[in-house]
């Protein structure tokens, strides 16, 4: 069953573009990655599905219900973690969480305790005294508190330290095992690859590609930069290497293929420095436009 059905969804803010003719489905129980650079329309899509903004054209359905007509009903089973978290500054963390919980049916005391201990959240501090990362933690606990069936995560890891990021990912995986569907928006390819089953790529307001994460990875490039004495670009004139450039004595290029062969080739050099990086999203997009 499709938890999210988006068809020909379009949003213009006056004349400026939000998203144009976006269609996709998210199936029950999957973690759907939604990636694109800033301003591509990720937040616009999420905000449309949460009925914070109204579509110009097209429709979105969540749990089979139209988002413009059944907002309150849909939101009963939704958890939302915005990219930037803002809460009532004067409130204490515990009061905000209780306020949030009061909107849902059930008793969430145990779960509040479990989640806040897991995320190492201090419950008696004022929101205004919290750092960005700590506010984010409040957002995580708040979003998961009422055991929603569908989670919207909008760039959830910004502001979290690596340890917390890992705990957060474990928590999301755990929720997902219980059957929670996750809509995961991000501009960091690595975290999407770690977590998601399928991924949609959005660029300049349009969906460019929707694919299984495996196929995306197979098509993936590595960005390699090598610095060594007397190194010439011709050294890397082998299959799979493209876009060779020399800059400040180091040779940069993209590589697609067996990474072992490349590492062996590089190891024959007397290196000053080497970096192997994930390509940036922009570079992935270039691939889709080839």
């Amino acid at each position, binding site marked *: 069953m499709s938890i999210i059905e988006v068809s020909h969804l379009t949003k213009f803010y006056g004349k400026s573009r939000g998203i144009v003719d976006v269609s996709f489905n998210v199936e029950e129980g999957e973690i759907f990655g939604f990636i694109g650079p800033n301003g591509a329309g990720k937040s616009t899509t999420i905000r449309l599905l949460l009925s914070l903004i109204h579509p110009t054209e097209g429709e979105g359905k969540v749990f089979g219900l139209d988002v413009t007509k059944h907002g309150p009903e849909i939101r*009963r089973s939704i958890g939302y973690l915005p990219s930037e978290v803002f809460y*009532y500054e004067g409130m204490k963390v515990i009061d905000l969480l209780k306020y949030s919980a009061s909107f849902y049916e059930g008793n969430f005391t145990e779960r509040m305790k479990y989640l806040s201990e897991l995320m190492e959240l201090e419950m008696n501090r004022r929101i205004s005294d919290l750092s960005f990362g700590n506010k984010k933690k409040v957002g995580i606990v708040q979003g998961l508190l009422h055991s929603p069936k569908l989670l919207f995560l909008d760039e959830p890891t910004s502001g979290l330290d690596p340890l917390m990021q890992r705990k957060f990912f474990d928590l999301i995986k755990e929720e997902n095992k219980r059957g929670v569907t996750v809509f995961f928006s991000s501009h960091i390819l690595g975290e999407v690859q770690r977590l998601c089953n399928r991924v949609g790529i959005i660029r300049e307001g349009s969906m460019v590609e929707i694919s299984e994460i495996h196929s995306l990875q197979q098509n993936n490039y590595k960005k390699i930069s090598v610095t060594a004495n007397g190194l010439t670009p011709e050294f890397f004139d082998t299959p799979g290497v493209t876009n060779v450039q020399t800059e400040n004595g180091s040779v940069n290029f993209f590589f697609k293929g067996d990474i072992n062969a490349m590492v062996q080739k590089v190891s024959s050099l007397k290196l000053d420095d080497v970096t192997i990086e994930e390509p940036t999203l922009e570079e992935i997009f270039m691939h889709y436009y080839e």
Partner: protein
Amino acid sequence: MNKMIFKHEFLIRINSIITWTISVVAMVFVFFSFFSVFAGQAEMMQQVLEKFPEELLIAFGMNEMNYDTVLGYISFYFLFIQLLLAIQAGNYGFGLVSIEETEMTADFLLTRPVSRAKILTSKFMAALASMLLTDVVMWISMFTAISIFSEGKDYDMATLLLLLFSVILFQLFFFSLGLMISLMVKRVRSVTPYSLGLAFGSYVLSAFSGVFGDVKLEYITPFKHFEPAYIVNNGALNAPLVLINVVITVIALVAGYWLYLHRDIHAVS
């Protein structure tokens, strides 16, 4: 209505309610404490006032006043209480939904499983309760002030009650208009300039409508709709003007609801 939102909205405004209530009560008592001075020298006061240009007196609503009666004296300074109440009501109206948007908490509230109509109604009720609380304390302090300072002079209770209760409609006008305007402009960065502008703007219109005689500015300003001197002198509300007031208030409220239900809540930018 959602009780949790009501409670939250009321508590978040509690400091403001206390501050405004204290100001209003202070004004009631401070002005009334001069009653005996004014009443004792009413004749002299009248002579002084006669030397002022008629237009100026009209502008300040001082042309038809009897400072030696309880109601006459109250009607003289009730204008200042109205001004305070107008600013307070304007604050609550302009800030009702705009503060959530400038402080970015709208995302939190509007992603709860509650319809926007319910959210706005709960907020509206909380603001109404806040204003009524100020009113009730003002009413009590007015009666207390009368019993302390009136020197046993008689007054018409029905007229006084009419004047005191009229502030509810008066406040609702500024509240509703504030709400509607806040939803029509792109972003309200700070509430106070708007509410001060609306309150003083309306007051100035009322003052000028007296000066220019023919210009019918009294149709649009609540300071004319609920002019204390008129209520006291006639023992009744100015029915046609009050009707206009209520119609404007209702239109503004309906427009406010419509705008809020169709509003796009923009992301942080």
